[in-house]
């Protein structure tokens, strides 16, 4: 199991489109992927509803957990989405 802290750095936060990108990426790996916000809400990163309910605005911190097959790749891929600001610009 891997746990990693990630920061939301894109200006608009995790709105519908970034949430969709996270869900699509997470779903392409066999492992379980979870995201937890600062209020302790822990959601399945393969669920658009879960990810949008995090209401993660720019500047907020999330805890990413992956457990199972290809967990390292999953974490890397999701981290990259955040770092690339979901191609917002």
């Amino acid at each position, binding site marked *: 199991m891997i746990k990693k802290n990630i920061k939301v750095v894109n200006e608009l*936060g995790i709105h*519908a489109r970034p949430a969709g990108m996270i869900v*699509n990426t997470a779903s392409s790996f066999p492992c379980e992927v979870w995201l937890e916000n600062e209020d302790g809400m822990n959601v399945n990163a*393969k669920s*658009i*509803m879960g990810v949008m309910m995090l209401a993660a605005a720019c*500047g907020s911190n999330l805890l990413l957990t992956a457990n199972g097959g290809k967990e390292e790749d999953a974490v890397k891929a999701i981290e990259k989405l955040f770092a690339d600001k979901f191609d917002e610009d």
Partner: protein
Amino acid sequence: MLIKKGIAASLGIAMGPALVINKEQGRAEKRMLTPEEAHAEVHRFKTAVEQTRADLKAMRDKVLSVLGKKHARLIDAHNLILSDVIITQTIPKKIRGKLINAEYALQEALDNIERQFAKIDDEYFRERRFDFIDVFKKIASHLASAEKASSENISEPSVLVASSLFPSDTMAFRENKSVLGFCTDLGSKASHTAIFAQSAGLPAVVGLVDISSQLRTGDYIIADGEQGIVIVNPSAAIINKYKARKAELEKEEALFSRLKDLPAVTVDGHKVNVFLNLDAEGSPFKWKRLKAGGIGLCRTEGLFMNRSILPSEDEQYEKYLELAKAYSGCPVIIRTADIGGDRATKLGIKGLHDERNPFMGFRGIRLFLKYPELLKTQLRALFRANIKGNISIMIPMVTSYNEVEAFRQIADSAIAELAAEGRPAKPCRLGIMIEIPSAALIVDQLLSLVDFISVGTNDLIQYSLAVDRVNQYVSSLYEPFHPAVLRLLHLITEAAKRCGKEVSICGEMASDPEAAAFLVGIGVDTLSVTPKMFLRIKNAVRKLNFKTSAAMALSALDLPSAKKVRALFDRENSTHSKL
């Protein structure tokens, strides 16, 4: 007659008989199933999901061709919802495990989602629940076997009334000329339905709570998409009033569609910025359709009104950020709050009483320099919101050099604080309002401290002519064309041009087409006007000849009275229209 208050979702007025469709189906009833039935039920559910997916696909193609990629993305979000584990796994599991019908399992899942979303503080994210509701209701409508009235078989022109509408419904309305507008129980300004309605140019009022159950097909209604109200069975007088307003709106609309994409340049190619005056508390999106090149004055007093505590830095930040984003790529000039002493007292600041003469009293920069923490809070919010670098800050009620210096010191310390805290922030361009004669007379010196100036003509005229506009005995002496006012404006503009800095006019004078000719003539860069006057002024600018206006403005400066100035402008106008 009954008036129902909702949310204005799309501008315009629709009048006609109501056609009630998509009535709230009520809550799903629970039915217990045998294991065999449950198996078939899962299949039935999955079929409904696939039908919904097919609807979305058809709609996406339609949206893509009619409205473009950005709108199509909204449909993509709906598609993802349809693929969510809740739909693909949780609900089928529930049907099998609890042996319940699909409608009930769907209802329970939706209730749960609504409960979760209700807990979210951020309005934008909370509003996203409507995306889920839309998709879930669409599945529910495929589960229901009952025939429903659909927008496609409307014969008589009608105003559609529904509990909620799917974007696919609004798409169909666009193609059906018999749909005059619509009213719904659910929905918000940010819902897809509202966005589609706006781009389809159909009036819409949403968030009416229970209108679909209160109205019957055939009831005569007026849906007022400007005020966000629906009038049921209105009186003849009301109908006439609305007919007149509707004609006016249609006329505006015709002008608008002609002008919105044309540049604000004079006939001889001189470019003038025509910007908007807005209030920070309103929705920044409301006037986007005017395609203004920027916001020349955004007042922030409204953020301090009707409340007993001060707006926090974060609250202000969100407002300014929304505005900066709505007009990204365009300049947005935000004026620090011009609040008076009485307002401050209501906000819990001690030691201020009602003033005898608030126009000459404790307000604007004067109040903020006495309470620097208030100013600093606003400046911090502005610097943080300036991520895209398009926000400028403007100081109201400046009378002296010292005030601007003091303001800059506070701004510098706010920036330093934000940097020390590691918060992302960007300094803003700084400007001042020239609305007091003393500032006008030393404008060359003030310009060394700022990047631009904007003239508030209402106050400048009132202070120069010593006329209180609300005093009926002297209000007739209020005269924008008074030679003293024109000379002051000329002096201000000349000084700014010498320093290579921009001059904008954000007072009412900019909204007067005749005065605009003078202002453009003396070389003002920007006319910032109310949304209502925006297109008229743009139109007026497009009819001006800059060289003629410049010559006329210069000769106006030598005239002894407002009467003679007006005569000159009238003469020029009539020769102009003859040509």
